[in-house]
């Protein structure tokens, strides 16, 4: 399942990434495999989304969230 498919309030555990370049950026910002991630809210227009991971808030576009595979 992709992170972009979660609704606000839902949680998941990061399993892997489908894009190597984006994976480096996400990992540098604390999105590591095995880390719990929660979708906090969507922007007023539905995109981007704000997630909580590794003890802080991150925002990213839905297309970017779609490269994060969660369970």
């Amino acid at each position, binding site marked *: 399942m992709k992170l972009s498919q979660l609704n606000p309030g839902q949680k998941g555990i990061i399993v892997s990434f489908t894009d*190597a*370049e*984006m*994976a*480096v*950026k*996400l*990992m*540098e*910002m*604390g999105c*590591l495999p095995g880390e719990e991630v929660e979708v*906090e*809210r969507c*922007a*007023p*227009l*539905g*995109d*981007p989304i*704000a997630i*909580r991971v*590794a*003890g*802080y*808030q*991150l*925002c*990213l*576009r839905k297309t*970017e969230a779609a490269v994060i595979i969660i369970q």
Partner: protein
Amino acid sequence: MADLKVALVGNPNTGKSTLFNLLTGLNQKIGNFPGITVDKKTGFCKLPSGKSAEIVDLPGTYSLYPKSKDESIVFQVLADKNNSSHPDVIVLVADSTNLRRNLLLFSQVADLGIPMLLALNMADMAKKEGISIDIDKLAQRLGVQVVNISARKGEGLPALKQAIAQITSLATQTSSIDAKSFAPEAVAAIKQKIATDNDYYALQVLHQHEHLAFFTDKEQEEIEAIEIGNGFDTVKLQGEETVARYRHLSKVLSDVVVDTGAKKKFTLTDKIDAILTHKVFGFIIFFFILFFIFNAIFSWSSVPMDMIEGGFAWLTEKGHEHLPAGVLTDLLLDGVVAGLGGIVIFIPQIAILFALISILEDTGYMARVTFMMDKIMRKFGLSGKSVVPMIGGIACAVPSIMSARNIESWKDRIITIMVTPLVSCSARLPVYTLLISLVVPDEKVWGVFNLQGLTLMAMYFISIIAAVLVALVFKFIIKAKERSYFIMELPVYRMPRWNNVLFTMYEKSKTFVLEAGKVIIAISIILWVMSTYGPSKRFEAIDAKYDHIEANSKDTVQLATLERDRAAEKLENSYAGLLGQTIEPMIKPLGYDWKIGIALITSFAAREAFVGTMATIYSVEGAEDDGGETRLRDKIGAAKDPATGLPIFTFATAFSLMLFYAFAMQCMSTVAIVYRETKSWKWPMIQLVYMTAMAYVAALIAYQFLK
């Protein structure tokens, strides 16, 4: 010269800039928005040992692998031993509430082998949130000194300075990962090629040599050949390295960090976000904040501005009364003082604008605006991150274009740079203010909104809409080099640092007066000379003509009018007048006469020269007037077309002028900064041409429809 060079390195939002201010006592702009530290900032600090240290504040980054132009500076400085900012010591500033992510950068920097220490900032906040860190154990495992500090409260500084003084010239940090294991042959080949014994440095060179200017073209080619020859996959290896580092850090941090209640820190921020980024309220609040800013600029500043305006009028009047009449007095009062008054009067507005913008950045609200606006902005070829340069453009395009450096994608960045100067900056404010006060009545609509304030807001909206539409055009013209990203930290809400707000107000007003002032005073003097003197034959002819009429007339009333007519005719025949008349056929369709033409010419280099020019031209014209019309606004409002006798500043002319100033690129500093940021003349020239064309067409349409 300092005894020691110290670089501050850390993630964005770790309080690095605040620490820098504390250490150096030099203040500068700090914000809550990731990557606000754009240019290199340097200051000096006395250490307890009596030695002095030069402190450099490097841009915030999550990793040595840069994602934006801004971040690439960090590795460039740390890699180049001959760089003037290359540090002897690195202070890595980390956020105690998010240690693991912060230590990723630590471990990369540590492997470069430069002596360093770790400053754990926000120690007080971490404690409050139930995070406890065993710093002795951490120091032992990392092999460097670890100091707890709280930059916001100014705690832990003596200990930090002591630690900097004590640091050894040999790096002591323990090794983390085996850098050469990722690409053994390539690393070995590079080590030999560039004569280094540091595996990680060699690996970084393989990844990033394109960013390192100190390699010659030949060296670049050889490094490239090693890369290709060994099948070096930079993306894959960066990923592997990051994973390996985090694995290492898990070991380092096991039983160092005890976290009992990490959720607490977000409760307040969550509640605020629920309102401020709400589907409906979010935009309404944003709109109201913008309206509040415009309203504040107008209403709060009116009293001090009236006082300044009145003060300068009084000064000119008294000067003319008491100083001996002559050319020098005229130059001083009608040239210099008039020009100076035209600048000083905008200090209240600029101070208010910058104070409000710095509060929005400091509290963390600006990051939310970015978050809310991204989807809209993307439709027009921009990114949510373009909102900050564009809102900053309301203040000044120059720093805003520089702040576009933290937009990762090249295309998004170029488009942002191209359209930011269209957003009405504070230099247009004087022009708008003057023209609005001439043609828009000072009335209330629905009892609350000031009509002039609303008109001003409309001008800003027009400029923003224009910027967005032009962006859309560029979106289809410019080809993308890489994909665009929008991964950004949303910092927790904080109270603004009031000292910082006050300082920003002071600093920006000072810069405006000094920088813009120099140009404006110079232009004012040149203009005064040009409008007072003309081809001597013409002037002699005018003098002869009026002397002749005067000699034959005894009517005192007629004499007074004659003096005024003589001055007006002289102005028309002065060098400035002739220049204005030369371009008059071109600007006639826009509703301008040759006097406005002079103002257009002088504001080619800096648009804020408009008001000063008007002030100079009209004080020259009114110099012989003994009436009470000493306020600029009244003088310009009273100006009449000599042919028809109708006022020159009608609604149509004023609106056409405002549109011209809204769209035209009348700012040499912006042209220069765009050249610097894009490293080519192509973009600033395209910008100059399209903006001037747009200004002309918009002003033409407006005048022809409204007249």
